[in-house]
């Protein structure tokens, strides 16, 4: 490939010209056939969305040599085994990560007198920033993006596409660091409860805002977990946490094709009671050619655009 640029245009080269010529010829042939039939054909849609189906369990979860389930795989936050961003038509039972009626996600309950809706300048995927633990895992559904798990003796590696993130977690029995340096992914210890890998996390940077229940991002207060009236501009169900936050993640590979991720957040300074996510369903990528993708924010036009738009709106307020 000529150069390593990301912009492709007139300099695409002679190969492009040949392909364009062939495409034109094929199109002319196709068009002749179409007009001969004398009726408008329905538009064909790329993406194979009509083939999306509920992935079957696929048999038991594979196991490591020590007998614990092997969580390794490329996982999508749905029941389809593939990315479904803006895919349609897709049945809601396949595209969602949990049934909001069967396992609703409650809103957080804050201690009286505490307002954790506002906090320090924060990092979010909205500004191509990191989301940390556990928001990165909870956020993937917004993009329908992939999580790759690589489990080897003594380690679990978790990779997320959006935002691009990596956690390398020691899985042998070891204690938390004493007063760990704050980090976006925290300090994690691991133990097994039956076939569930339990990740205990402390020391998460206080600049990170917890995403909170997913439905609260929908501005319809009548939906389960939707924002109550008056809270529309409060940033949804998300909140800022204290240095005493304690996060417990539970990973269970229920079958070859399915993984459940559930997280509980405790915070004695902020939350009146622990907040529990719904068990979020992940399905194994079913296309052997599908691979974890690099997603580095290298061309973000939005901060500049938003600055211009906001400046304009400020100047024209009340006009």
């Amino acid at each position, binding site marked *: 490939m000529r150069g390593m640029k*990301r*912009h*492709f*245009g*007139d300099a695409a080269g002679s190969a*492009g010209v040949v*392909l*364009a010529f062939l*495409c*034109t010829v094929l199109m002319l042939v196709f068009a002749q056939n179409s007009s001969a039939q004398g009726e408008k054909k*329905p*538009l*064909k*849609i*790329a*993406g*194979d*969305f*009509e*083939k999306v189906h509920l992935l079957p369990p696929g048999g038991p979860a594979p196991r490591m040599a020590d007998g614990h389930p092997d969580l390794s795989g490329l996982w999508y936050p749905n029941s389809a085994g*593939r*990315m479904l*961003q*803006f*895919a*349609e*038509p*897709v*049945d*809601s039972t396949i*595209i*969602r*990560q949990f049934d909001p009626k069967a396992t609703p996600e409650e809103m957080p309950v804050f201690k009286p007198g505490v307002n954790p809706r506002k906090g320090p300048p924060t990092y979010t*995927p909205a500004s*191509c920033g990191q989301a940390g633990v556990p928001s990165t895992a909870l956020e993937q*559904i*917004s*993009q*329908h*993006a992939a999580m790759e798990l690589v489990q080897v003796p003594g380690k679990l590696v978790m990779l997320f*596409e*959006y935002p691009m993130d990596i956690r390398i977690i020691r899985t042998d029995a070891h204690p938390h660091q004493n007063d760990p340096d704050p980090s976006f992914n925290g300090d994690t210890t691991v133990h097994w409860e039956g076939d569930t890998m339990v990740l205990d996390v402390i020391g998460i940077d206080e600049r990170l805002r917890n995403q909170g229940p997913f439905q609260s*991002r929908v501005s319809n207060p009548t939906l389960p977990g939707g924002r109550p009236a008056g809270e529309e501009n409060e940033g949804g169900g998300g909140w800022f946490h204290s240095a005493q936050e304690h996060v417990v993640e539970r990973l269970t590979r229920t079958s070859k094709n399915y993984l459940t991720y559930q997280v509980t957040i405790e915070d004695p300074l902020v939350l009146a009671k622990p907040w529990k996510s719904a068990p979020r369903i992940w399905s194994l990528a079913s296309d052997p050619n*599908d691979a974890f*993708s690099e*997603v580095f*924010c*290298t*061309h*973000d*036009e*939005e901060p500049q*655009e*938003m600055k*211009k*738009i*906001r*400046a*304009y709106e400020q100047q*024209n307020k009340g006009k």
Partner: protein
Amino acid sequence: MRAKVAVLSVILLAMVAPAFAHHGFQAEFDKSKCMDLKGTLTSIDWDNPHAYVHMNVKDPSGKTVSWSLEMITPNALRRNGSTRQDFLSNMNKPMVARACPAKAGGTMYRGTAEFLQLSDGLLRVVGQNVENLTPEQLHW
């Protein structure tokens, strides 16, 4: 790998999870001014967090302007059946996009594409269907 095709007779918008928009669609783009843009594909930016498609379009006065349309990430485009090679093989040929422009104050001729059709005729999902359109409602 060529994008595979599907003939669609009925569309149901069954989106349960609103897809991620960095600052919220409404903060940046004007949903009330979405339009069909017909022109020529001139280049693409295959980059993150958004790929961009650029097209030359004749404005009502006959002047040719260059539109820059934001799309979803390359990994999402690829998994939605639209590869970089698909765009390259349709370069400098006619294309149509259903797009919504930037809000007032934003860059002129900048917008976000919901659907587009390159010269190969496939309908491609490249962004959020904020208008809840069905293929039949696209006047292409």
